[in-house]
């Protein structure tokens, strides 16, 4: 079963090569690759749930000398989310780019991005993580600028520079770790690391880099323009996955590798930044005139929730209480991933149909595309954190943890953020009602509308109603 780990990386990479070499057949190749990689991700998820965490030593060299890939419950879940989002977005992208030449240039980058996501989620080596971060950053930038519109290129350039800064900070931390502990392997490091200046400084540097990449307030400023000006499938993946895997790495470092080092004050700092992100992001989303910017600002806010978990988790005693809350964090991240991807895909359809994405002029389009509007509504449910979405379970755990540890501020922020989210979501949904002629069918353009609808449905009904396995997986794959 451990081979699934390497296949998860090799398969999209091979797909990238194949699409580049056979540009005419690139779309079918990409779709086949997407399906196959998703199946592999599913297999891995199953394997982790059955056998616990898996690892694979590349080249047969033991971890330390060589590089090990590892998958536990957390990474398996995020890999599955990645697969779902990428698969759906791939299907969508197949029709989104109307020109064959554009598609042929798009697929290799797309699959390389997927490669980097999987590689990052599986990597068990600090330096290798740096390389995957760079691969992720570059492929994300290349995709963000894809199409070459001025605003997109400008935002992508800014994105690239900040990403590079982040990577360099990360690498500086890595070098400190190597200097101090002589190893890059995470598992070895977990055992070796001690609360001392080397480890603190290294963690601070790596975290700073990752915070920049995951766009936590006040390091978020690059995100809205980059996510809002990219093409729809790219925006979906940027918002749903790219920032998310950087966050994953933070969680991995803070909760796992350097868990002994983390102090309440540090976690509290992340919490405060998260709180600010929630409020500021939501407020900006409420004020913006454009749909895609709204979605992008919403990402800033939603990431804030994930950071609120840090002080809460730290305040809870290790054991079932903390594990349960941690599951809340994961399910919140998963839900946001699926929902935000669906949201961007749906917005893309609206944008293509109406030629713009100005919120105040959406009326007709929103009503002529009921399925897409419904997808936006479902995504909204997940973003607000209403039941039965997975985000509801996540926020419940967040609130419960805050109550249990007496951290009232987070409760207020969570509630306020949810209400603001409701405000900006329903600002959009209001335009779905009116007396525009209703189309004959609810789903008017199947291949474009279904991916968004399925993703958002999964976020709402799938994770919300069948979310319990997430906790089991985290437990069995710990």
């Amino acid at each position, binding site marked *: 079963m451990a*081979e699934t780990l*390497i296949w998860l990386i*090799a398969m999209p*990479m*091979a797909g*990238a*090569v194949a699409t*580049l*070499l056979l*540009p005419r057949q690139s779309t079918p190749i990409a779709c086949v690759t997407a399906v196959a990689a998703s199946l592999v991700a599913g297999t891995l998820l199953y394997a982790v749930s059955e056998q616990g965490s898996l690892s*694979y*030593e*590349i*080249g*047969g*060299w033991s971890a*330390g*000398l*060589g*590089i090990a890939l590892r998958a536990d419950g957390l990474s398996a879940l995020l890999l599955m989310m990645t697969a779902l989002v990428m698969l759906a977005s791939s299907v969508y992208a197949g029709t989104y780019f109307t020109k064959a030449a554009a598609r042929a*240039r*798009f697929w*290799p*980058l797309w699959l*390389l991005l997927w*490669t*980097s996501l999987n*590689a990052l989620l599986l990597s068990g080596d600090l*330096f*290798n993580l740096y*390389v*995957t971060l*760079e*691969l992720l950053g*570059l*492929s994300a*930038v*290349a995709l963000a*600028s*894809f199409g*070459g519109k001025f605003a997109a*290129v*400008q935002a992508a*350039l*800014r994105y690239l520079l900040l990403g590079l800064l982040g990577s360099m900070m990360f690498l*500086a931390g890595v070098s*400190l770790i190597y*200097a*101090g*502990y*002589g*190893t890059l392997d995470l598992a070895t490091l977990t055992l070796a690391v001690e609360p*001392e*200046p*080397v480890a*603190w*400084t*290294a963690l*601070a*540097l790596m975290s700073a880099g990752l915070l920049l990449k995951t766009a936590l307030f006040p390091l978020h400023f690059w995100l809205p323009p980059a996510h809002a000006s990219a093409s729809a499938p790219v925006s979906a993946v940027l918002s749903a996955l790219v920032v998310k895997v950087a966050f994953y790495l933070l969680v991995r470092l803070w909760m796992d590798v350097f868990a002994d080092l983390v102090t309440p004050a540090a976690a509290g700092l992340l919490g405060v930044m998260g709180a600010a992100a929630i409020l500021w992001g939501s407020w900006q989303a409420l004020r913006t005139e454009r749909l895609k910017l709204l979605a992008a600002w919403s990402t800033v806010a939603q990431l804030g929730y994930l950071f609120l978990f840090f002080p809460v988790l730290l305040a809870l005693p290790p054991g079932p209480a903390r594990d349960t809350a941690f599951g809340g964090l994961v399910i919140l991240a998963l839900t946001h991933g699926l929902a935000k991807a669906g949201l961007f895909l749906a917005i893309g359809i609206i944008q293509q149909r109406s030629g713009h994405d100005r919120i105040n002029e959406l009326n007709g389009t929103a009503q002529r595309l009921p399925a897409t509007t419904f997808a936006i509504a479902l995504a909204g449910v997940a973003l607000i954190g209403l039941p039965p979405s997975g985000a509801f379970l996540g926020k419940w755990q967040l609130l419960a943890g805050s109550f249990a540890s007496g951290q009232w501020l987070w409760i207020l922020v969570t509630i306020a953020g949810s209400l603001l989210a409701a405000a900006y979501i329903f600002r959009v949904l209001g335009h779905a009602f009116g007396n525009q002629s209703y189309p004959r069918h609810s789903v008017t353009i199947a291949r474009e509308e279904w991916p968004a609808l399925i993703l958002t449905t999964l976020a709402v009904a799938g994770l919300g109603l069948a979310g319990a396995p997430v906790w089991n997986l985290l437990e069995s794959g710990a």
Partner: protein
Amino acid sequence: MTAMLVLDILLVLSLLSLATAALATNDARRSVILFMAFGLVLALAWGRLLAPDVALAEAAIGAGLSGALLLTAVRDQAHRALRSSRKPVHERGRANLRVTLEWTVTLLCIALAGLLAWALAQAFDRAPKDTLAQAVSANLAISGVSNPVTAVLLNFRAYDTLLELAVLLTAALGIFALGPARPGHRAAGPVFDGLARWLVPALILTAGYLLWVGAHAPGGAFQAGATLAAAAVVLRLAGRRSVGLPTGHTLHVAMVAGVSMFLAVGLGLLVLGRPFLGYPPAWAGGLILLIETAAMLAIAATLVLAFFGGRPTPAPGVAEKTS
């Protein structure tokens, strides 16, 4: 020892002053040239610190190719990009804010440097942890090469290198996707042309040598690829439009050569029942060379492409060939 110390101090001081100068000036071209000088001094420093592989790479890539890229960018006025996004400083309040910001960032950076240095000092004070280096030398025999750096790069941590090639490929594809390249330089004078006539073959030969020697001495695919790319750069500067680079499909093949060879080997071994990229010791040398060759091609193609800054356009009518 003292001579060494003097050298060290000189090197360090020149590094710092060159970097400061390169970053302080507002003249883009000057900045780039200072940066190239910085790169060369850095290569010296690598050499001083017993890292010849890195020194070679730095000289070829860090100083050479990066410098060339930056210079071209300066020529294309690319450095002006993003500038307009920041509003001009007019109001006093805004200016004050700006000053405050600058001071804050500067202080933070100084604090960061101090922190880092302090932590580093702590790390150096411990007993050196050589376990990994020892493991490398212990396994060098079965790695298929005798240069430990190459062994790490292409065997022990070959996966890193695979991803690195993917990074290169991504950059190339990203550049590709931006549209066609700008027209090449005007044809240089006959002197440069003459220079190019013998410089290019020499560079190509050097590349081949570096590739070969990488197995047991400093050198390898990256240095070789960079050298090869340098040859193309020279041609380009001489006014050759596509500098012998294939266009269209063949270019694709060259770009993905590294990644695909890597993957083919890795997956082939996987299919044969070995771990991914787990070379049998007997074949290791050959396989590494195979991969390195492909990687060199890919690196060269990518670097040249980067230098072009876009898809090379097929030459209109005139077939251009290197001598």
